[in-house]
């Protein structure tokens, strides 16, 4: 147990160091957060256009949480899969849980995702005059983190899928998060979707977590909220496990056919 925590700690710091190389406070604010606020505002404004306060609230909350999902998907870019195929066999062979250790490496992305989403929610919420029911609204914080982690797991899985085709990285990242925007009940309720799509969306990150978040705002019973949050966590674990399994196969296949060579 102690070793696992130790490895996790190191993994987290490694990730954080990577991150600091890209961002300073100023560049994060000016270069990322401004974009986030405007992205959320872009959609919230539709509610204003429709003259429907409830819709404004709905869109704002949905798109703020999408940010957590978006950053998770970015993990596709920032965490090149080939790094994992190096450390993965070690992880899998170790007595600690690979899922936990693995998540620690990219945790900074999930943390940033959650932070960005929450900062967007509360600031944009204030700007648009959304009702933020204190102190209940604080419950969104842990749920947002779960969403961010689940998306990170999803992004990691995708990283393995596109590993061999690095040239389509950006393509997959952008298409994925816009698809999440379309499919996870971000802008319209799930009930609006045709049933098969609604079912599919439950297996994607963000969908269940977002339902939990909306539940917090709507005053739904705690059991329902926790249930949805737990589903989100399960989805996250599922994708992360799938990622690990696929990487394992990638690593062994790669060693056989030499496709692990980064040079290409």
């Amino acid at each position, binding site marked *: 147990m102690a070793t696992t925590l130790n490895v996790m700690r190191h993994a987290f710091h490694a990730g954080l160091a990577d991150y600091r190389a890209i961002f300073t406070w100023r560049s994060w604010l000016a270069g990322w957060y401004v974009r986030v606020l405007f992205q959320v505002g872009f959609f919230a*404004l*539709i509610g204003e256009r*429709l003259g429907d306060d409830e819709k404004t609230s709905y869109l704002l909350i949905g798109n703020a949480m999408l940010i957590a999902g978006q950053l998770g998907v970015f993990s596709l870019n920032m965490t090149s899969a080939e790094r994992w195929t190096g450390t993965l066999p070690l992880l899998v062979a170790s007595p600690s849980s690979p899922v936990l250790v693995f998540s620690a490496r990219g945790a900074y992305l999930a943390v940033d995702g959650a932070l960005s989403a929450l900062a967007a929610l509360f600031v944009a919420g204030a700007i648009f005059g959304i009702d933020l029911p204190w102190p209940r609204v604080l419950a969104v914080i842990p749920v947002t983190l779960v969403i961010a982690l689940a998306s990170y797991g999803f992004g990691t899985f995708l990283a393995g899928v596109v590993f061999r085709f690095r*040239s389509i990285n950006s393509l997959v990242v952008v*298409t994925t998060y*816009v698809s999440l*925007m379309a499919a996870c009940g971000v802008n319209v309720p799930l009930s609006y979707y045709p049933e098969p799509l609604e079912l599919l969306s439950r297996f994607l990150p963000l969908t269940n977590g977002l339902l939990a978040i909306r539940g917090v705002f709507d005053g739904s019973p705690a059991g329902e909220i926790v249930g949805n949050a737990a589903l989100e966590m399960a989805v996250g674990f599922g994708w992360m496990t799938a990622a690990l399994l696929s990487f394992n196969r990638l690593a062994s296949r790669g060693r056989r056919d030499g496709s692990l060579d980064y040079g290409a």
Partner: protein
Amino acid sequence: MGGFLAGFRLELQVVRANPDALIPLLTAPLFAVIFLAIVRQSGRSDLEPDALMAPVLMSLWWIALVQAGSMITADRWQAVLEPLIASPTGLASVLVGRVACLMCVGLLSFFEVWLAGWLIFGVSIPFEHPLQLAMTLLATAFAMTGTAVAFAALFVMTRNAYTFINSASFPFYVLGGVLVPVAFLPDWIEPVSSVLFLSWSADLLRASLKEPAVDDFWGRLGMVLVLGAITFAIGRAVLFHVLRRMRARGELATA
């Protein structure tokens, strides 16, 4: 003319080999579906034109900002900028040619959003003012080209491309009234929005798809063209200055 054609043809070949060029063509129909779903679910079919035109503008702007914007920097990294400058043709016309090609590709999104709307939502909006719609699209593409040149020049000067791209995407979609018209934004934003050709283009595109005759069409089209031309002029000036500086400092190639 030669440089323009050389650039146009080059970009056709580059685009065919570059998957990233597909991004705006994949996001446009997705956004169309998202926006249509919102307006349909709220029972506002009258806003379907808005929902369809916004993704087109977003895609064209994204092309100008990201794809065209990074062109000079990418060429520099690829060590093809220096020989280009040393050639008799020079950068400006080649750049415009390449951007024009990208805009043509971007205009395909116009057809995509209609297709997506029709297939998924059964949207069928009659083309009320087809000629004006076409002219607005062309004028917008022209203005986008000018903007792209400006972005390409600014991009080279910028230290942090990531910051640049992020701060110039969604903020401009909002300020330019790309989906929600500027009229619905707080009053104090209006002066800012009115110098962006985007807001004029967006208003015109929406208006040309709605029944009543387009109010002051020529005046507004003129604004798109004039603002586009001004952006073009600024872009060219910045480009000239940037290239001259790079030539003086020996920065046309990376170390």
